[in-house]
């Protein structure tokens, strides 16, 4: 090896150290310091109604590669991809139930299409889907609870009489009628959002929310 070559090599090593290593390292450390804490709270963002079979939000955000295959697999075009405003969830699939809820296809094509396992292939029956839980968030404005014969959410529920049932009780206001209150059963509700879509009020009084975690206490009911 000639001296000139030696020189080049040294220069390039210096160059490497100065330009090639320091800058990216600095970038990595700075970027990491900035991003990691915010990314760790990823699942603390608002509730996204994920397609059927989605892993728990935190895990889902890790496993979803934002490829959009489930969007293309959905025959009802219910699944859409999150935009930049979704932060770390950008490009992940979600459902706006009020606009187009999950119709719970018997063969669950979205789950089949997911390559990365973010939608769990172990979920093969619609009854096993757990996207969220429907909750009547505004009892005051629920027509059925006000005694009117509405119950549209109940009659449209794909798991009618299981996920939503009617609990009739006497209506003291008229004295001769029944209040037919729709009641959601958390252990059966799959969170498809069809009830939210079908609610006739301007603001839906029944919406799908994140399924509350079971709470453990030293008390047996």
């Amino acid at each position, binding site marked *: 090896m000639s001296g000139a070559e030696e020189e080049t090599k040294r220069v390039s090593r210096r160059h490497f150290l100065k330009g090639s290593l320091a800058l990216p390292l600095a970038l990595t450390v700075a970027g990491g310091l900035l991003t990691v804490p915010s990314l760790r709270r990823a699942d603390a963002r608002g509730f996204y109604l994920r397609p059927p079979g989605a892993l728990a939000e935190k895990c889902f955000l890790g496993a979803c590669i934002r490829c959009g295959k489930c969007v293309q697999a959905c025959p009802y075009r219910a699944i859409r991809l999150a935009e930049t405003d979704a932060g770390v969830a950008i490009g992940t699939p979600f459902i706006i139930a009020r606009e187009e809820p999950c119709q719970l296809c*018997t063969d669950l094509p979205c789950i089949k299409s997911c390559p990365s396992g973010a939608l769990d292939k172990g979920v093969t029956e619609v009854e096993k889907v757990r996207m969220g839980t429907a909750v009547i968030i505004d009892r005051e404005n629920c027509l059925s609870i006000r005694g009117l*014969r509405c119950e549209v959410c109940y*009659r449209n529920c794909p798991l009618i009489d299981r996920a939503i049932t009617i609990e009739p009780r006497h209506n003291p206001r*008229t004295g*001769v*009628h029944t209040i037919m209150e729709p009641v959601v059963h958390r252990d059966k509700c799959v969170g498809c959002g069809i009830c939210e879509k*079908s609610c006739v009020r301007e603001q839906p009084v029944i919406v799908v929310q994140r399924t509350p975690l079971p709470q453990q206490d030293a008390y047996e009911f």
Partner: protein
Amino acid sequence: MALSRRDFLKASAAAAALAAATGGRLGATDVHAAEGGIRWGKAPCRFCGTGCGVLVGVKDGRIVATKGDPAAPVNKGLNCIKGYFLSKVLYGKDRLTKPLIRKGNKMVEASWDEAMDLIASKFRESIAKHGPDSVAMFGSGQWTVFEGYAAAKLFKAGIGTNNIEPNARFCMASAVTGFMTTFNSDEPMGCYDDLDLGDTYFLWGANMAECHPVLFSRLIDNRLKNPKVKIIDFGTRFTRTSQMADKYIRFNPQTDLALLNAIAHIIVRDRLYDENFIRKHVVFKKGKTNIGYGLEDKFKFADDPKPMTFDEYREFLKPYTPEYVSKLSGVPAKTIEEVARLYADKSRKVNSLWTMGFNQHVRGTWVNNLVYNVHLLTGKICKPGENPMSLTGQPSACGTAREVGTFTHRLPADMVVMNEEHRKKAAEIWGVPAEKIPAKPTYHATEMFRALDRGDIKVLWVQVTNPFQSAPNLSRYRKGARKGGDRFIIVSDIYPTRSTELADVVLPSASWVEKEGFFGNAERRGQQWFKMVEPPGEARNDLWQTMELARRLGHGNLFPYKYVEKEMFEEYRKFTLGQGKDLAPYEAYTKARGLRWPVVNGKETLWRYAEGYDPYVKAGEGVKFYKNKPNDYKAVIWARPYEPAAEAPDRQYPFWLCTGRVLEQWHTGTMTGRVPELKRAYGGAVCEIHPEDAKRLKVKHGDKVRVTSRRGSIVLTADLRGRGKAEKGNVFVAFFDENKMINELCIDAYCPISGEPDYKKCAVKLEKA
């Protein structure tokens, strides 16, 4: 210009009349003082036959709010989801506001004068060339009493034809003939109070939970308060009603006839009947059997009633053993025994409720007779909380179609054109010579559309209904309507429909509170309302349209009224007085939240034929079927056998098709379809299939299936998880969807006695599409 001058005069006359009509009185009936500039007026709901009362809030000439009327005895301030959206029903974007006349393939806007002149000339021409039976009117159980009365009067007493039919022929006719053959007077003896007072309720072919929502709420409340109450739902499809019933009894389509005879069989076999009641109030009769299905054009049928004895009736019932009927119907013999005992249980007040499962039936009259048989045998009738009750689907099927008598064979108040005395009485009240009213009924609804197809009817005017979506075997009649020749079709409606698209002239109508009106609900309750808002654009009341035609045909003298609605009502009222159908003076209805006829001395009648309630029944008589003079004031128990349906599944078409309604949409969806919220809640017709059938056909929930009958074919989404669960071998499709007209598949077989088609049974095949 003459026409604008006349319009002006009419308009100001109308304004004056309105002022006279409503200026003072609307104030009197205003229930709530103006709040926030909103004036509230009362009206019955525009939808089903329940007849819920609503308060309509008007501000700046527009309906801005509605609410259930707390003072209305029917619903006490509640509504179903359709009623909740009443305020939006009139304000769809595509309201018809101008008369339209067909020019080739286009509908061109025209003035009222042009349109009415054209219609009048077509009527004149056709009557001159082909006689009065070449023109016809197809009306509605949604007609106000005035509209129906004016149309009947014009056609029967003016033009001189019985070519007038309501769409109620498609939904109530079998109930009518059932009442007429058994009691010789139309409409139920009971009322909604029975829902609060009874112990046992048998529902037959009625999805009350969805089709009579507010009444169902009342029925369920009775059970909540009284644990003794039992609701038993007989059906061929598991519905929301079945879900809430104590027991759901599934039977094979058409075998209701056999089931009711089996119940009677057990009651007679085990002497569970009320001997005293039978002796005093019942006669036995039999009619013709093998009576056909009316599938051929110009089908005619006349029954030949023969009296029989109780023993002969007992003999007639012999074959209907629980074992035999169990095989036929698929209901276990033990269940039939239990049901019979429940019907006869002396410790229970028993009611039967039914709707279209009975009425839309090729033996609709028979099956109505048969349910009365059971009540008459056990004496469980005409008592508070204990009655058979036919529920209706349209707001004034009772008030207008049945009471005014807008059927081809009828005259007001239970009278018929075949009876000379009846014709005389009608002619007298109408101020025309008795000969003017033709004695022969012409076409009932299905035959009317067949006559149009053949070309026997040239000019047809359709008001307040949508027959080219709701008729059975629809393709034939839709094609028939556009066969050309001399055929001329006029459709009055508030929105473009599948019927207006076939019309030569489309007239924009006023609806509901855009006009003064009067409806009669299923419990004989007449309810009046005032005009509260102006119709949009040039839209006008159907009543005005009919009278305008009358004027142009030279029959203006039939309608010599100043305050049209009131004077017309008082004239109509004359028919009812002393006939056990007495209506109150008009004034009374403007104040009351409806009154149940007969109203005698200002007192309404809750239970007909019952002492203490019905003023026509004298003290000591207990129960008296006073309208049934030909049968010695007794009700008739009819020996009506089981006969098969017109078309049953076979190898080629292996499924029963049943059609019906859902809570969110009403009839052909022309009004509810304009409410976005209701559309979102239930947007389009689907095909309910039993999961096992679907599996065999390799159809999943949400797949497209082609449903085909001998008459038509349609592609629908398969529904395996819906609110209604089809039984094995059955499918169900709602008929409201104008883009999926299932009635194209329905057979136009009808009950030979009532003329009502069977929308509940025909054979179809399914294929994955």
